[in-house]
């Protein structure tokens, strides 16, 4: 009896320490070809590296962000013409503000940079934003639908892809699971 109790307790303690592993990860948007095939790191695809100038004139470099110690990278695609994207921006901005340990990047698919700046001003976006002229980045990320969000772990593997139905809770869970998975 005592041995059984010890076994149960040890299992529970292990689960609490590991955050229950893959069970906390919300399901990915399977329509995107970069979505992980399963919860294991080996089933995850590499996040396309980005080194681009942002709206504020700085350079965002995913590899450099990892070197600087960011545990997780979050990349969100949006556009001014995309109403569901804009509905998600307030909570995404809040997420970025509350998680300085996460490298957050917004990628805007609008044709005109002025439209991107309008959205940034309207929603008070403070995270780095890249204007994806020519849809080059959406091509590399195989984006056909928006809003869409990619979460990569410290090794640069995509652990979660949030599709149009993504919620703030999904993103929080995916980041939490990704930061503890490596």
């Amino acid at each position, binding site marked *: 009896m005592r041995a059984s109790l010890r076994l149960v307790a040890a299992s529970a303690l292990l689960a*609490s320490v590991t955050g229950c592993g893959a069970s906390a990860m919300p399901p990915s948007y399977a*329509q995107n070809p970069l979505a992980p095939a399963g919860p294991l790191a080996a089933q995850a695809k590499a996040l396309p590296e980005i080194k681009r100038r942002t709206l504020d004139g700085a350079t965002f470099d995913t590899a450099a962000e990892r070197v600087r110690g960011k545990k997780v990278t979050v990349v969100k695609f949006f556009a001014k013409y995309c109403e569901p994207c804009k509905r998600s921006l307030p909570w995404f901005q809040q997420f970025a503000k509350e998680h300085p340990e996460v490298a957050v990047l917004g990628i805007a698919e609008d044709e005109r940079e002025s439209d991107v700046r309008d959205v940034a001003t309207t929603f008070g976006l403070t995270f780095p934003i890249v204007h994806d002229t020519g*849809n080059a980045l959406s091509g590399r990320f195989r984006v056909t639908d928006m809003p869409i969000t990619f979460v990569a772990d410290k090794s640069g593997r995509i652990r979660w892809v949030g599709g149009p139905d993504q919620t703030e*809770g999904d993103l929080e869970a995916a980041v939490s699971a990704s930061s503890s998975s490596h």
Partner: protein
Amino acid sequence: MQRLAVLVFVTFIGIAGCGRPMHAESAMPNGGHDTSHLAKCSVAASRDQPLVTEWPASYKARLEALLQGGAVAVEYSGCDLKIIDRCRLSGSYAWKKTTLSTDTTDIQDEDDLYAKLPLGAAALSGQLKTSGSLHVQTTVSGQLQLVGKAADDATSGAECSRATHLVTALSIGAFKLVAGGAAKVSGGAEYGGMSGMSAGGSSAQTRSVLRAAGDAVSCERATKDEPSPECRSPIQIFLTPIRRSVPLNILSPLPDERG
């Protein structure tokens, strides 16, 4: 007994730590966010001047038919562009011949495919792997331009309440999506000189036409009075926002739109 209490506590902590993090919103379906309409948008190369070549043939045909009957209004808010059939407006579209222009887009890999043809990318991915490359050629011989109707005096009736933009111009020409080969073949002929799968000169790779509308060679026969009958497929539409004195959102919906 004390040891048992510790074990029970540790067990509880372990179980409670499982699952997704709890948030105030997460107990509600979809986190409390309203996704009852416009759940997603497609990435597109141009939003203000959409390429019609990506539209289904039936939709293009409907647009062509409506162009004969007056100015065409569309609902273009958020992501979708819908033609408002019942919004009948004055005005007409006048043909204006332009210098023949040909634009060829070469797609060599999946990065290109998703960047340049996002709407059809998933369906064309297998074809790209098989053929090695895809090539999109558009030839434009002129425009149908709206005359006799200004965007701000357009839409007072209930049938037009949903309209947000007028189609102020439509470029006309031919379109071809080809798999395999290169943009130019060794004999110097371009796709514009191709008829179906054959071309002058030689090419080591097999080419096949995946999708086509109109004949690019015929585009040269457009006159100042009318486009060539074999080169009058809609290629790209140009939209102008309708300016209203009454905000769109307080106009009553049509009877069949209620509930």
